[in-house]
């Protein structure tokens, strides 16, 4: 389905991107939509919308079952998407790409199945203090089931992992922090990019450290896939989870990449059709990878849509898109800081285009409501990271998150609208 020729990859023309997103022509409260909630879900280019509707209009059939032509075509389209995704994240094999309903399901699959394979009483699972609830709760459940303990890497004031490596006087706290892994650690589950802070974490380095101790590593890549080139072999992770809808793809579709060797050993997560080899009432046997982990009819349209979104991104220069988003971030950071009492939550050196902030005397909900009245969509609240909010001593933040189609003029509109709202609220 991706037959469109590659556009010029050099200069960045934001208008070229904007023209491809039909929703950007919508008005909100009579004003042009300024969409800054891309970290919650990104908007979809016409090609992705078309890929899904073309599937339904021309080749809709169940996959891997029928002998008829449509079923073959649907199967081929689905498996072509799997290959596109394999190539995009540089997995060794297409059967290491497991389709799920999203990052949440991917992590639940990993936590449940890996937990069953690896965790025993007294074992430890390490996560970080900036994880999304989706990368906390599945591990809590797994730990409860197997009598394991959840350990948390603390977060610094700038919103980075505190691995206790910075030089300074040795305190009991610092020593404790340097012991991220113990001989009981079995699994490390960490986000590549923080949804709330935008921090790009040094996952490769920590994974290397974990691997030396035989620890299995799971990366939540939901916020990285839309912005960074991800190479799972270079990262060295065992698992990598992400969603389609945050990366210009459809909702309800996600991926769990898993290393073949581990996937082979792991027990299935959900039972049903598609995932079996033989079924009898005494004992069933499992289908080969990836189908062992794909029970039931998959989200075929979503898979095709996600494949198209990845192809679409690859027709452009992902680095240039990210660089554009960083210029928006730099402007937003500089201009928002001119507002009296505004504090940015998340000031790491390495960030994607996400800015979270609080303003003294202004509730994030009031601000979000008044920005919406001015046509600007931002996210307010705890962003599914309540422990992180506690860490920074705030009940929530206002978050603007940028995508390839956002403009400098929109950033200026956000700053002006925020100033107007603050004036009304003080």
């Amino acid at each position, binding site marked *: 389905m991706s037959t469109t020729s590659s556009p010029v990859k050099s200069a960045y023309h934001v208008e070229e991107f904007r023209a491809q997103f039909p929703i950007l022509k919508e008005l909100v409260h009579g004003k042009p939509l300024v969409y800054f909630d891309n970290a919650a879900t990104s908007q979809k280019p016409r090609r992705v919308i078309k890929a899904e509707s073309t599937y339904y209009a021309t080749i809709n059939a169940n996959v891997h079952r029928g002998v008829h032509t449509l079923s073959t075509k649907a199967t081929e389209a689905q498996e072509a998407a799997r290959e596109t995704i394999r190539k995009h994240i540089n997995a060794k094999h297409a059967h290491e790409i497991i389709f799920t309903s999203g990052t949440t399901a991917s992590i639940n699959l990993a936590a449940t199945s890996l937990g069953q394979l690896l965790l025993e009483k007294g074992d430890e699972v390490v996560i970080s203090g900036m994880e999304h609830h989706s990368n906390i709760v599945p591990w809590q459940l797994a730990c409860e089931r197997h009598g394991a303990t959840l350990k948390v890497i603390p977060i610094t004031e700038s919103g980075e992992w505190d691995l206790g490596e910075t030089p300074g006087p040795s305190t009991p706290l610092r020593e404790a922090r340097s012991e991220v892994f113990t001989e009981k650690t079995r699994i490390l589950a960490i986000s590549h990019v923080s949804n709330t802070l935008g921090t790009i974490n040094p996952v490769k380095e920590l994974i290397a450290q974990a691997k030396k101790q035989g620890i299995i590593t799971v990366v939540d890549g939901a916020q990285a896939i839309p912005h960074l080139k991800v190479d799972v072999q270079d990262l060295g992770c065992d698992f990598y989870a992400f969603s389609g809808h945050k990366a210009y793809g459809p909702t309800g579709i996600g991926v769990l990449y898993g290393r073949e060797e581990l996937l082979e050993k792991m027990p299935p997560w959900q039972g049903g059709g598609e995932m079996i080899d033989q079924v009898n009432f005494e004992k069933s046997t499992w289908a080969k990878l990836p189908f062992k982990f794909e029970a039931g009819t998959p989200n075929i349209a979503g898979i095709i849509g996600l494949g198209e979104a990845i192809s679409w991104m690859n027709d452009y220069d992902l680095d240039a898109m990210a660089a554009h988003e960083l210029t928006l971030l730099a402007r937003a950071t500089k201009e928002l800081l001119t507002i009296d009492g505004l504090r940015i939550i998340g000031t790491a050196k390495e960030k994607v285009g996400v800015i979270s902030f609080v303003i003294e005397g202004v*509730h994030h*909900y009031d601000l979000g409501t*008044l920005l919406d009245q001015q046509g600007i969509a931002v996210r307010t609240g705890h962003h599914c990271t309540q422990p992180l909010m506690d860490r920074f001593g705030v009940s929530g933040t206002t978050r603007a998150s940028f995508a390839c189609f956002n403009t400098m003029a929109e950033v200026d509109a956000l700053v002006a609208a925020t100033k107007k709202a603050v004036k*009304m609220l003080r």
Partner: protein
Amino acid sequence: MTATLAQTQQDLVDEFAMFTDWQDRYEHLIELGKDLPLITPENKTEENLVRGCQSRVWLSAEYRASTSLSEGTVHFTADSDAMITKGIVALLVRVYNDRTPQEILGASTEFIDRIGLREHLSPNRANGLSAMLDQMKRYALAFSAGSHEEA
């Protein structure tokens, strides 16, 4: 003489009808919040928190027996950490405060639509508003059921 519940609703509808601009409408809502009978700090408890609002809203009710009437009235106090939410709860309190449980339970809520706020409020916020209304009606119901203790 105090305005009836229906009159108070109509007054609010008229007040908001004067504003054509979103900014004036919200500024008025924020102003309303400043007249809210505030809940006492000791009543800002977990139990008095209204569920279903993104910002925190505390709502407390007290039954005041009447010497002349057979039925007493419900006195509401509230607060919120967000100004717009505080305005919304103030708007509801202005309508329902010091009414009998029967009046509160029997009142129509369509004035909220007529004010034009519901359409301007996000689904989250609208849910918060319904949650506040439900909470007020629950207090009224508890008092009308005869147990005239402080809810």
